[in-house]
């Protein structure tokens, strides 16, 4: 008998003030004992709803409208509360995306384990401390964390603790809901490895829910793909990779590639591979190449200002009294030529966002100089900053936070047009519609009247890009512009940015932790680690033949579907 059997399960959300949403429709699936299965889908596909339903954590307004969930032959939906509580041990457990925030900040990690043991009484009192030590060691933490408070641990460590807590219940089924999404790239990679190893050694059945097909294929032996509440693909990871059946799966797979490959292509984005390497060795800098080729004449001013950062350091005061000062950037120099595109990569805390803030004049350097053209950015105030921002614009990471929820798209775009180009309101409207056309939001009249909540994430990001273009800037700083978007939307937004850069001759500083996207949209790359530049050069050269161990580590952390079934 299989461990979990789901028959024709449907889950519907019925909020009191809106129409019901069918999040999961007639899903049937079985999990065999000891299997490691992945469940992949983009946002809104119903994958988390399904995960919550399986572990009976669904809360109103979600409701199981039909179907049955049999766990070890028993109907989960029919369990009484007390039976359910007992079932949490030796039954099913869940590790949440925000699991690292699930710890009580005023209790030590050890207390969390003691609570679990006390609630279920499955470990004899005198064995409990030893068992807790054993568990944290299993997730590769030192047993000293037991005496510490959650606030003293990093995000990755806390997520490991929450995995250990789930393990303390000795579950037969573990559901991991995006266990690494909120973590930094390198940490993400390490935690996933731990999960894989644990699954192999402990032999529990695992369901890994993720939006990232790459991560899932790399870890699991079987994968299910969900799309609009329906499971569209279900097969062994290797088979899915080699021969995907559903068009949706094929589309998802087409968005993965190895940044180290000789030629890298993503849907809608042209290759920037070998040709560049050869052209770079003979031709002048790629910046001038874009400039000289200028087939499409620029509407406004030509990009002429280079960004020069010279020996910049930024030191923040200590976070707590007695702690050491934080050095975000340490003697960094760089030069971004007009029309060039440069990637700034590094894990979180590497100082890449600080560098962006210095260039845009949001913060001032502790030492060193930043200049755009002949303007010293680090000396600017009020008016000067406004003038600078006409030339240096920014695309924000989170399209959900970067638009004022109460303003229409037209208002949002009109403001920079009126502020920077001195057009009258009527002329501004023409320009706004033109901008919407440029970023591909058509019919433009309709999109102009919309409020942000009526737009999808990708559409919002296009509005954010349109706003950055409104002042006809020379330099665009894009801070992780696609990291909050679904994989299928990323390529479109990247292609847009790349197209605009080439067409308008804008220089772009592309900040990211995602080396694959850096490979396809930039010519130059700079790798930051702990506030220092560890490697720089042509993007294709650096990524194909990395020299610094940190760059290699970052490259290894990129999810590779081609490594599918490695764990099986």
């Amino acid at each position: 008998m299989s461990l979990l059997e789901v028959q024709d399960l449907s889950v519907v959300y019925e909020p009191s003030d809106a129409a019901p949403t069918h999040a999961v429709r007639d899903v049937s699936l079985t999990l065999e004992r000891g299997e490691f299965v992945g469940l992949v889908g983009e946002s809104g596909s119903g994958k988390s709803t399904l995960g919550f339903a399986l572990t009976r954590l669904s809360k109103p307004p979600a409701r199981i409208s039909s179907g049955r969930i049999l766990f070890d032959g028993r109907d989960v939906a029919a369990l009484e509360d007390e039976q359910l509580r007992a079932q949490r041990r030796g039954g099913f457990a869940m590790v949440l995306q925000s699991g690292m925030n699930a710890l009580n900040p005023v209790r030590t990690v050890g207390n969390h384990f003691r609570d679990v043991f006390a609630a279920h009484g499955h470990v004899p009192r005198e064995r409990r401390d030893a068992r807790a030590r054993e568990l944290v060691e299993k997730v590769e933490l030192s047993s000293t964390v037991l005496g510490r408070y959650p606030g003293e641990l990093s995000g990755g460590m806390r997520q490991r603790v929450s995995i250990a807590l789930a393990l303390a219940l000795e579950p037969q089924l573990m559901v991991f809901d995006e266990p690494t999404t909120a973590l930094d790239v390198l940490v993400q990679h390490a935690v996933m490895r731990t999960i894989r190893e644990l699954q192999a050694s402990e032999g529990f059945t695992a369901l890994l829910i993720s939006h990232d097909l790459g991560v899932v294929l790399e870890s699991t032996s079987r994968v299910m793909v969900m799309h609009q509440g329906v499971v569209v693909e279900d097969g062994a990871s290797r088979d899915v990779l080699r021969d995907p059946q559903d068009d949706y799966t094929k589309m998802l797979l087409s968005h993965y590639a190895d940044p180290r490959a000789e030629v890298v292509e993503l849907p809608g984005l042209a290759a920037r591979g070998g040709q560049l390497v050869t052209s770079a060795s003979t031709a002048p800098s790629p910046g001038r190449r874009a400039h000289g080729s200028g087939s499409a004449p620029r509407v406004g001013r030509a990009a002429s200002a280079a960004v020069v950062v010279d020996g910049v350091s930024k030191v923040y005061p200590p976070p707590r009294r007695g702690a050491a000062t934080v050095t975000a950037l340490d003697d960094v120099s760089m030069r971004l030529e007009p029309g060039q595109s440069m990637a700034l990569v590094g894990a979180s805390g590497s100082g890449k966002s600080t560098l962006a803030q210095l260039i845009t004049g949001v913060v001032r350097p502790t030492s060193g100089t930043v200049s755009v053209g002949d303007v010293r950015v680090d000396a600017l105030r009020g008016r000067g900053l406004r003038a600078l921002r006409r030339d240096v614009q920014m695309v924000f990471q989170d399209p959900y936070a970067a638009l004022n929820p109460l303003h229409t798209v037209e208002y949002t775009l009109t403001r920079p047009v009126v502020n920077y180009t001195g057009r009258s309101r009527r002329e501004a409207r023409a320009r706004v519609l033109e901008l919407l056309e440029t970023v591909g939001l058509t019919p433009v009249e309709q999109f102009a009247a919309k409020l942000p909540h009526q737009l999808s994430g990708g559409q919002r990001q296009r509005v954010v890009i349109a706003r950055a273009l409104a002042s006809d800037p020379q330099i665009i700083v894009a801070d992780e512009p696609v990291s909050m978007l679904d994989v299928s939307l990323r390529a479109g937004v990247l292609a847009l940015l790349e197209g605009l850069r080439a067409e308008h001759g804008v220089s772009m500083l592309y900040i990211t932790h995602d080396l694959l996207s850096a490979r396809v949209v930039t010519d130059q790359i700079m790798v930051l680690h702990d506030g220092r530049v560890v490697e720089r050069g042509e993007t294709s050269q650096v990524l194909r033949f990395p020299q610094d161990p940190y760059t290699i580590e970052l490259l290894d952390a990129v999810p590779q579907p081609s490594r599918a079934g490695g764990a099986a």
Partner: protein
Amino acid sequence: MTTPTTLPDPGGSESERPAGAADSAPPDLPTSAPPRWRVVTRAAGTVWVNRKARLGLVVLAFFALLALLAPVLAPYSPTAGGFERSAGPSSAHLFGTTAAGEDVLSQVIYGSRISLLVGVVAGVLSTLVAVVVGLSWGYVRGPVAEVVNFVVNLFLVIPGLPLMIVIAAYLQNSGLGMIIFVVVLTGWAWGARVLRSQTQSLRGRDFVTAAQFSGERSWRIVFREILPNMTSIIASSFFGAATAAILAESGLSFLGLGDTTQVSWGTMLFWAQNSNALLTGQWVLLLAPGLCIALLATSLSLVNFGVDGLSNPRLREGSGR
């Protein structure tokens, strides 16, 4: 101000000045009007759905009608004397008469006008002060913020009622305007502090940084980007301020610090107390205005429950269950 490196587009530098003037003149875009109305009706709907708020709105509407239709509803003029003094309830005078021979029912009806007027005017004014101070205080950094902080703290630590009494006594019976002034002076600080913390949290949002990148000036960021996102807090701070103003007016009038010739619920209590109404068995004289004050203040607080649901959708879901 264009940077020297840029080549201005045709006529760019000339048209920049008029643009600066133009952007301050028409504050509204015609296209933003329809969605805004939808927001208002949806907000009203949210408040109405809450059961407590609905009760509050009904009571509030009752008093508002009472105030508006006072000349129609009241059987006599509130200041017309000449009836039997200190009479008990009868068919001619449902609530009896005062020691000066005036009709109590008419006084209660007319009294609602003063209370509502003071509540609305003082509520609006102190909310306005709170919004202006709170938002600019939350947005600026540095020494200015420290100075404002000191002033607001000063107003917060001085006990409100004694301060009101001192100021009212100092200004000497100058009527309704004085009472409103005193209420506003002592009532804005709390709202300013609440709005300031909310502004500080919104100030760090990406859309505010984005507005800076759009070349917006500070005052515009504060009042066009940040302010509309705090509508519900401002609304609830208005209802809070109005409640406090109504209670303060009654309190001051009861102490005889207002214009005692004017008919308000507070002055009714003042005269009832003066004529020992309780000793003469005229409890209606104390109960009627007292109950009205309590009901009106309660109705405003109840409406505030619904306003909370506006800012916090979770409270809304909870009320449905």
